[in-house]
């Protein structure tokens, strides 16, 4: 199975978009998961709903909202451009943002379940030994939830890799810049004789997704079991 340079470009771009999306959203994902798992504050249900919104909204709506907000004339987009020269719309960085937003609920869900599975008694014990809440989180909660964090990252990566609707709405599908793997497959299906190319790329996408889900499943089963850290 031979890939053309354009196809390789799409695969590479998708991998870069998915890696960047996953790594940059991870700190926020952990914070949100911790807040939902352990926090008791007004607006908790609202936060939960907002995080899950991309899961139930039509992706094209999410993409449109991103375009309105982060486009060059959008409130956040215009500000980013003016202050730091960051432009997201129709750039690969925008594809990473769209992928991160779409994958966020999956990441938060996996991490949240892992944190909820950590025995609160251990957190209490750490408190009586002198650790404040942040140190308890860093030295007890997070290490014990680590398999779930990894699972969440992998799920997020796989989802980001396959994101299509919000991406194409927000950043279009410009070869070399925003033509991701799913966009390339879609483009193939729109031209006569593109079947073979669409099939090749679909096989690659399915392969990556399958590996990601299996690994994430294995990690999830390890939550609560002590990770070999020290």
């Amino acid at each position, binding site marked *: 199975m031979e890939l053309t340079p354009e196809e390789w470009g799409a695969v590479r771009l998708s991998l870069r978009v998915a890696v960047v999306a996953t790594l940059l959203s991870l700190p926020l994902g952990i914070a949100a998961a911790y807040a939902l798992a352990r926090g008791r504050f007004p607006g908790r249900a609202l936060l939960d709903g907002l995080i899950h919104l991309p899961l139930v909204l039509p992706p094209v709506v999410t993409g449109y909202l991103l375009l309105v907000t982060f486009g060059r004339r959008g409130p956040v987009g215009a500000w980013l451009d003016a202050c730091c020269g960051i432009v997201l719309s129709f750039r690969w960085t925008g594809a990473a943002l769209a992928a991160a937003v779409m994958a966020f609920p999956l990441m938060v869900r996996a991490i949240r379940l892992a944190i909820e599975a950590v*025995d609160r*008694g*251990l957190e*209490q*014990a*750490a*408190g*009586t*030994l*002198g*650790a*404040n*809440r942040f*140190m308890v989180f860093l*030295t*007890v909660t997070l*290490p*014990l939830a680590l398999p779930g964090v990894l699972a969440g990252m992998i799920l997020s990566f796989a989802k980001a890799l396959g994101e299509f609707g919000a991406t194409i709405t927000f950043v279009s599908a410009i070869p070399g810049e925003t033509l991701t793997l799913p966009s390339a497959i879609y483009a193939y299906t729109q031209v006569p004789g593109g079947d073979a190319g669409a099939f090749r790329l679909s096989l690659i996408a399915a392969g990556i997704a399958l590996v990601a889900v299996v690994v994430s499943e294995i990690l999830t089963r390890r939550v609560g079991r*002590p*990770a070999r*850290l*020290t």
Partner: protein
Amino acid sequence: MSIAVRARHDQGDFTLDAAFQTDARVVALFGPSGSGKSTLLHIIAGLVRPNEGRVAVDGRVLTDTAAGLRVPVHKRRIGYVFQDARLFPHLSVARNLAYGRWFAPKSERYGSRDEIVALLGIGHLLDRRPATLSGGEKQRVAIGRALLASPRLLLMDEPLASLDAARKAETLPYIERLRDELRIPIVYVSHSLEEVERLTGEIIRLDGGRVVGR
């Protein structure tokens, strides 16, 4: 050493309404399960906020609901030995022991690690994982971990209750040793009169959430 505790706390259909004050270095809270011993201990440690009450250890007020005061758990410097040990499963025994040491101010640290390890007879366990320890060993490591945080007061919540008779007989002498050799103030909770009588003459009896004698 002086402890003054007064607390009223509702938990479901159970109401704790107890007060005691003592100058004894080792005091036992004794009573049947559900008498409120553990809740009282949780309130002293700051793990439970009472509906109403006041806790002072050596004159230092830790909780005073009337004044809206509540020192956070990690600043109380009160050691807690839980019935179920609660060792950190992802850390070795040595790392468990070292955990609280790091948070204790240098000027207030007492007892070296080697001294406490020897006292509790856990030197051969240092490289092991908590999951591989017996119940008695776990409890001794948990006691060592609490002591190495150099607490001003040690709370022991039924530390032997989850052990069989043989392990109990094996572990109790270690507690007697730390009582005699470290001279640390202890509040010891148990439903076994035999156990508490071996440790102290200062016994506060609880039943149904109230102090019924001493």
